[in-house]
């Protein structure tokens, strides 16, 4: 009874917010509606008794993916009025793609045969003696271990690809090498000098060479122990 009411409430909010994701004018609102949709999907999982999947959905999608999504969308400076003008032009293409997809889905679904025991398994998705997390783990790490590892490898490749694409050495960055800083001894950087009164240290000629074309006036009086930039 309560579960049924809950199902309809969450399903309606899920569909409504999914629609809002597409139609909202402001992209940030779109992402926030997407988050709402994720939440309701998690609630539906909970009603179906899949508590592990519900929590993982929230942790992975809402807690990590959508945060970065929101991050990016907020940083974008896109003129959305301009973007919307293209809608008339691209709508037919989108429609064709959608129709092809629908047709293919129809083909797949009409040719789909359920295994004889599928209905029985669907009625009780988890073994009664185990919690759903343990049941999932038992299957995932034994029967499907290779597929699981494969999925991990694909993600790893994607990650390395993203790093390779974005990592570029510009040579202008000043890196902090904490190990080197900690290993540095006073003798390497600090010189104690007895300077004659009024002579100054310019005459002795121990000033370090300036790093590149730095403003001369500002740094030329720096003492040797301030040499390493932090």
């Amino acid at each position, binding site marked *: 009874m*309560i579960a049924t009411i809950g199902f309809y409430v969450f399903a309606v909010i899920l569909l409504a917010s999914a629609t809002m994701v597409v139609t909202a004018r402001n992209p*940030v609102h779109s992402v*926030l509606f997407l*988050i709402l949709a994720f939440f309701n999907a998690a609630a539906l999982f909970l009603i179906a008794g899949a*508590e*592990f999947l519900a*929590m*993982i959905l*929230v*942790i992975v999608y*809402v*807690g*990590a993916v959508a*945060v*970065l999504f*929101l*991050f990016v969308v*907020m*940083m974008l400076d896109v003129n959305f009025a301009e973007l919307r003008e293209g809608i008339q032009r691209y709508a037919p293409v989108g429609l064709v793609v959608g129709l092809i997809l629908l047709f293919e889905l129809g083909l797949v679904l009409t040719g789909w045969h359920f295994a004889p025991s599928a209905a029985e398994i669907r009625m009780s998705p988890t073994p009664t003696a*185990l*919690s*759903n*997390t*343990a049941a999932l*783990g038992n299957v995932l790490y034994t029967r499907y271990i290779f597929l699981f590892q494969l999925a991990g490898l694909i993600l790893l490749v994607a990650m390395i690809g993203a790093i390779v694409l974005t990592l570029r050495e510009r040579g202008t960055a000043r890196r*902090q090498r*904490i190990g080197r800083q900690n290993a540095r001894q006073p003798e390497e950087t600090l010189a104690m000098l007895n300077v004659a009164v009024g002579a100054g240290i310019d005459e002795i000629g121990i000033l370090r060479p300036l790093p590149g074309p730095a403003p001369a006036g500002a740094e030329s009086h720096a003492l040797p122990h301030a040499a390493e930039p932090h």
Partner: protein
Amino acid sequence: MADFFLHTIVGLIILTFLKALALIVPLLILVAYLTYAERKVLAAVQLRKGPNVVGWFGLLQPFADALKMIFKETIIPAGANRVLFVLAPMITFGLAILAWAVIPVNDGWGIADINVGILYLFAISSLGVYGIIIAGWASNSKYAFLGALRSAAQMVSYEVSMGFVMVSVLLCVGSLNLNDIVLAQKNIWFFIPLFPMFIVFFISTLAETNRSPFDLPEGESEIVAGFFVEYSAMAFALFYLGEYANMVLMSALTTILFLGGWLGPFGWTWLPGPIWFILKIFFCLFVFLWVRATFPRYRYDQLMRLGWKVFLPASLGWLVLTAGVLLATGWVPHVSS
């Protein structure tokens, strides 16, 4: 009477409501007095007296502050997104309270005793960043936005190592239920065998709650007050209280994962379980305040380096080590429920 509460829907709803009330009221009082405790501890560290005017030893100071906040004017900036601007502090504070639904204060005393309690807590704590991002964006102010961006990157980074630390604890427990996690520490509290992870976890909770020395999202010397620079009155108070409620929550989580929850040290039972639990939370909170009084703020690149290049490999390595040791010694917990 007991029948009514336990077996009818209305009774169960009333019972749950009363349980929640019995948890939230002490929690809010604790949060209020945590602000007082922070000022007293900071004062003690800096050889000052701290608040001592309102009430005996300044004990009514939190309520004086609350009254002040309530009577101030709520200002919404002209270019702000009104709905999100108002929503953000509510999200922050609401999430900090929401997580308490699964915290077991004593054996089986949690309001909801769910099988995936630790995942629930992790999910809720990873949502905390939304209050901050939304506040930063809705304020339509560059400082607020900078604070929000910093916070988003920081919290996502430290969540990763926190997750791995939790997994190594869970390996030793064999259950995701918070009650089971505490009961698994009957013989030895996990902070002894998993000491490095305890440290990593504690530092990550500092970063996760945006506390000093990782309080870059609000770094007042660089970006004024960060994400809540545009907030005033009760909206500001909600952010403020949300931060402290999050501290209490993270202390409770640390207590459950590493300090044996409601179990007394050396098997002592001369104090009831909830008292032990609260004492341990106080200890963690004191360390939070102590750290704030002691350490200067991290620089942003150092913060990222610590999260990704130190904590992540360390927690991942320790996870493999834990699994290896458990397998080699045959101590792998039996998963039954």
